[in-house]
């Protein structure tokens, strides 16, 4: 790792180089190199994080791969690339990243959060809960872990547990809008469960009160009818943006 002095020296050299440059520096923007050999791991991690926050997981994956090519021992890059890969459907690659990250740092909370999200996507609620509970054992106030565990609980129909987790997260971060959205979704799920009880008792043909929010309601109703937990997946969040 170059020292600050070395860095300044390089920059000074560059400035001198530019001063003596002739026409060649008018070159057009260079052909994009997906893994510019002159850049370092921290730089690509920054690139990856930008893409990650934009949910541009394909680009994030590429940037983290560049970062890891330079510094394979970066749990953060592994955790986020794993999440990016999971979202893109590369579960095997994601799990490999998570394993590698945990080998480097078994207390990497984000890895448990992100692997929990992957298990949730796979429908493996038990493993998801286990990972998220591990994350919370390491950091009880981790709102991402609480949020995601709430989502998993909701997806498996354990609304009371879901509400407990989301309320715990809201106690830590009352101004986090995503938490309120998740809580609303849980209430919708709860409403649907109650509606299911209503239909079971009153019959399918009995009209339900008119209204809103019909789209979400129908989505969660489909979830209940089909057993497809996919309606909940959009609520999952990575361990860290």
């Amino acid at each position, binding site marked *: 790792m170059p020292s600050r002095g070395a860095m300044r020296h390089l920059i000074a050299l560059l400035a001198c180089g530019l001063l003596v440059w002739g026409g060649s520096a008018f070159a057009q923007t260079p052909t994009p190199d997906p*893994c510019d050999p002159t850049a370092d791991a921290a730089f690509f991690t920054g690139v990856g994080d930008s893409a990650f926050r934009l949910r541009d997981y394909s680009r994030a994956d590429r940037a983290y791969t560049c970062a890891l090519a330079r510094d394979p021992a970066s749990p953060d890059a592994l955790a986020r690339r794993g999440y990016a890969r999971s979202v893109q459907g590369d579960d095997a690659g994601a799990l490999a990243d998570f394993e590698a990250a945990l080998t480097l740092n078994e207390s990497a909370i984000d890895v448990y959060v992100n692997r929990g999200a992957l298990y949730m996507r796979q429908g493996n609620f038990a493993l998801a809960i286990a990972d998220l509970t591990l994350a919370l054992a390491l950091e009880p106030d981790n709102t991402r872990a609480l949020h995601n565990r709430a989502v998993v609980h909701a997806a498996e129909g354990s609304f009371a547990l879901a509400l407990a987790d989301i309320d715990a997260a809201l106690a830590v971060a009352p101004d986090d809008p995503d938490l309120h959205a998740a809580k609303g979704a849980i209430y919708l799920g709860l409403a649907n469960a109650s509606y299911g009880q209503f239909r079971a008792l009153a019959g399918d043909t009995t009209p339900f009160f008119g209204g809103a929010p019909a789209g979400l309601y129908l989505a969660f109703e489909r979830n209940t009818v089909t057993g497809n937990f996919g309606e909940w997946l959009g609520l999952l969040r990575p361990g860290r943006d």
Partner: protein
Amino acid sequence: MKRMIMTVMALAMLAIGVFSVSAQQNDEPRQTPLVCDAFTDRADTDRISYYMGEGIANYYAGLYERAEDSFSCIVEQIDDDYAPGYTARGQVYMAQRDYVEASEDYGSAINLDGNLFGAYNNRGIARASRGLNDEALEDFAAAIAAASDYRPARINRAVLNATLENYESAIADLEQAITESGIDDVLTELERPDRPSDAPRPGYEPIDAQAYAILGIVYSNYALENFESYITLMRGDADQRVQSAAGSLQSRANFDLRLDDGSYYLLTDFIAATFTGG
């Protein structure tokens, strides 16, 4: 750390529109505090590298406010002597048409490294965009003094001089840019009568051809001036053909070939477009 070098090395020239929108002041306090909590356990060089990467990616994603924050993390919280942080943030401000802040950032970079001719060039554009023409001309001159073959600054100075109707100065700069670049030789080769039609095109930088375009606009304005002198002298008896030509040139000068809208300036790109599109 070479990343920073690449950032400065990328000198793709961008044409920007600068005059049409007034500069936006950006010196009010931040609405939200600047949070720079990435890589806090790492060396400053790593943190700088991280935020350069993040900022550049944000910039190319069009997220200028986030890019500004990324570069601000560098110069406000990590190392206020890091010139590429200022030039990068200055470019973000230029994209936001915030010429006051851009001028300040390029000035900070220049204070740290007086040889940053690209920073002089860009500050010249920012100042011209604010109507600070004398200061802008000084900046373009400083850029040329720092790198005599830095043709974008020479072309930019010609654009500004043409805007100020200093046509002879503009023409002198443009002709020098053409001579220095050798683009006139390229043109001669392309126009050679016995040149085979399948001969490969000679290599040249498109930016150098720009000098001919600006020269054409200058001569067009020159021609318009002469036509107008003629029409003034002839009062109502001016030749209709000349009056028509003058009207046509006036229309073009007001629209497509308008130099004072800033769109013909050449900005030095301090933000490398290397991998972010990858």
